[in-house]
């Protein structure tokens, strides 16, 4: 990003930056894991399993930790979710498994399922091996577009089932949002790349980077060259604010700021403003705001249109921002951004409230001075790469059935480019399930 007196890199010394972007939630010790695993009641037909999009046998893997059967525990997790390591770190467990833990009812303190999952999967990754091997080769070749969690989960399952897979991705590195779109301290120490290597170690998967759908290949050509195609192409677009001043220097998309951080090994070359305003209410807004603060911004204000409970970032995420000295202002809609050709100066918001169940912004305006504005009001699926193809887009996403089939024969899709929760864990489920459907279809065809 362009640097101005108010937007600069190196605001903090290197050792402080290193500390600020290291693992935000360090792993459990073996002792802590044992104590925590003993707390699990081993519920029957457990609500936590139902709450996990990938349906991991949570009581099963926790029981195995308590008995010291860590290899068995890791396998239980990974056979449902090959990205169990990333999900242990980035899942909003407070609204998924941990949110449904029966101990919430009893004592308001759920089992730390995410931390235990990390304990077991970290062990597996330290072994440098994965617990799965490939079935006898089928001779089938499948193309996967997008090397994010959905695409790689699909590729892994397909490889396990004996197919050969080629994964295409437009970027320089595989990993998708795990590599480019999540706060650095959530997946510290190059975890995303290590996990990609772990997933690929099953064999039979080739990664082709720098390959953009619609530019370097088309769906029709892939369909012709491969036995099946899976699309895990995510969101390529970001929503605009649609207000005046959106293009002054210093106004950026939060996803680009996060990506810049993720591609910088030291963070010392990433510029940040003194007074940063982040607009939005999801995890991207939180990740951008907290990282701006940790880069050395003096004041970071996260501004959201509605109330705390309407934010898609969970209460835990909001509190994480607040304990990182980010100010959150609710019920404020952006009205305009003021500045000059040299840079942004301020953002004006309209105060609102709920009237008859609707948000109304008629409570007067206020202005926040800012030298950097990060926009995080949502990401969009861009159907452009598929414009030439005969595939049905519905409500802005690729239409799929329960097995991940699109309207085009032999073409499947999953993850953020299809409808549903925009979560890593949901993308993994989609990819895995599509792989099962692809195998069932190819094997049923009997050829």
């Amino acid at each position, binding site marked *: 990003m362009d640097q101005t007196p108010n937007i600069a890199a190196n605001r903090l010394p290197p050792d402080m930056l290193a500390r600020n972007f290291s693992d935000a939630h360090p792993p459990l010790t073996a002792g802590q894991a044992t104590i925590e695993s003993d707390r699990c009641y081993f519920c029957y037909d457990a*609500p936590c399993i139902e709450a996990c999009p990938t349906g991991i046998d949570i009581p099963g893997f926790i029981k195995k930790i308590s008995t010291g059967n860590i290899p068995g525990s890791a396998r239980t997790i990974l056979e449902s979710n090959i990205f169990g390591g990333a999900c242990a770190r980035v899942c909003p467990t407070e609204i998924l498994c941990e949110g449904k833990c029966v101990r919430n009812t009893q004592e308001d303190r759920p089992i730390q399922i995410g931390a235990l999952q990390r304990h077991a999967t970290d062990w597996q990754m330290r072994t440098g091996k994965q617990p799965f091997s490939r079935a006898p080769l089928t001779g089938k070749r499948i193309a996967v577009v997008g090397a994010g969690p959905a695409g790689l989960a699909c590729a892994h399952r397909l490889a396990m089932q004996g197919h050969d897979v080629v994964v295409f991705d437009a970027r320089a590195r595989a990993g998708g949002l795990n590599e480019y779109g999540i706060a650095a301290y959530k997946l510290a120490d190059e975890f995303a790349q290590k996990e990609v290597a772990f997933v690929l170690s099953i064999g039979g998967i080739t990664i082709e980077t720098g390959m953009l759908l619609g530019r370097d290949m088309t769906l029709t050509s892939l369909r012709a060259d491969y036995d099946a195609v899976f699309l895990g192409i995510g969101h390529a677009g970001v929503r605009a604010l649609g207000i005046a001043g959106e293009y002054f220097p210093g106004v950026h998309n939060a996803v680009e700021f996060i990506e810049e951080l993720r591609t910088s090994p030291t963070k010392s070359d990433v510029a940040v403003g003194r007074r940063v305003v982040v607009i939005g209410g999801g995890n991207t807004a939180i990740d951008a705001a907290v990282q701006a603060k940790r880069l050395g911004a003096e004041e970071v204000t996260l501004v959201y249109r509605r109330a705390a409970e309407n934010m898609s970032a969970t209460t835990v995420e909001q509190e994480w921002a607040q304990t990182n000295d980010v100010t959150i202002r609710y019920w404020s809609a952006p009205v305009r951004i003021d500045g000059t050709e040299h840079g942004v100066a301020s953002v004006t918001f309209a105060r609102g409230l709920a009237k008859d169940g609707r948000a109304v912004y008629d409570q007067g305006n206020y202005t926040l001075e800012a030298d950097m504005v990060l926009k995080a009001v949502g990401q969009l699926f861009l159907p452009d790469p598929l414009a030439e193809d005969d595939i049905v887009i519905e409500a802005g996403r690729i239409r799929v059935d329960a097995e991940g089939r699109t309207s085009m024969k032999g073409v499947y899709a999953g993850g953020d480019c299809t409808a549903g929760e925009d979560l890593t864990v949901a993308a993994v489920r989609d990819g895995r399930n599509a792989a099962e459907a692809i195998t069932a279809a190819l094997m049923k065809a009997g050829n």
Partner: protein
Amino acid sequence: MADLSINFAGIRSPNPFWLASAPPTDKEYNVRRALEAGWGGVVWKTLGEDPPVVNVSSRYGATRYNGQRMAGLNNIELITDRPLAVNLAEIKAVKKDYPDRAIIVSIMVPCVEESWKRILPLVEATGADGIELNFGCPHGMSERNMGSAVGQVPEYVEMVTRWCKQYTRMPVIVKLTPNITNILNPARAALRGGADAVSLINTIQSVVGVDLDAMAPMPVVDGRGTHGGYCGPAVKPIALRMLGEIARTPDTSVLPISGIGGISNWRDVAEFLVMGATSLQVCTAAMHYGFRIVEDMIDGLSNWMDEKGFETIADVTGRAVPNFVNWNQLNLKFRTLAAIDQEACIKCGLCHIACEDTSHQAISKTLLNGERHYEVIDEECVGCNLCAHVCPVDDCITMVPQPVEGVQTWNEHPNNPMRKIPAKAG
């Protein structure tokens, strides 16, 4: 405020809490700390003849259960490994400084009259209040025809008890081994020999676990293990049964009982008392947490006695014994049913799966307004209590006794081919 003092077979103690003959009572230093902490008395770790025994290094093995340390403890330590004269001098010094406490000395010498005749006056000269005959130690000493090797032969129990009564004026407590099939046989032998009281249980023969790397029983001593004596909370149920057996049997019921076996808190104490004990001996709990645990025992028991209106230990001793009967005296017409407090239920499903897989399919699992819902099917419930035991929430599942019409025990039951047919009236 309840009076906790006792007179146990002539041995006076300000409270019924004694440390059992074991490592905590091996030395003057430990014993003084215990008495300062408030213990009513100690049974000094077993004295033997010189030269003293030699103990191994690596002495204890323990059972862990779901994170609970020392749910059971196993030891392969023998009797005191210090010279007799040293122990005797220390006992004398302690008794002199703590005249109000019960100082009892555990003894184990070969089954030879001369040996007992020789040691008893030496012990008596310390001013000790009584002796306990160690007929229980199930490892090491039993290989030398002492400890449980004596306790397992009623004739020997009787013979040695008689020698002791003959050669000392001190009250004689016979410590019984649980490593037998019928506890009444050695208890009766002690009674015949003139014992003033019995104490039980000593430790249970055990292999506490196996080291899967060393391929040897634990605790491992240079690559090998041996069986040991098991104690701690895990053995309490076994102890309570044996205690109750002696307390409810008319001829042995005259023996004062010092209860031993996994006693860890005042609640355990109360249970041992109502099953027939007058004094209590503790070891594992003290070895786990230190001597300070006696504080809770003292005021917990005292508070409970106040609440129940019991003024002395004698008011408590044996309260539950009349209700400890053989199975054939239980009322077969009694019925209790599980009831789930739906407000307290946390929906873990453990009651359902326990009943469904292993019992009577009496707890249904349904969805009620989208929530998991577990309900007792009264017609199928046999009142076994399993669901109430597996439920992790206190008082969520309660067993509700149903109205009973009359009494019918197995003795009168039509299915009993041996039933007693009441004589016809007139």
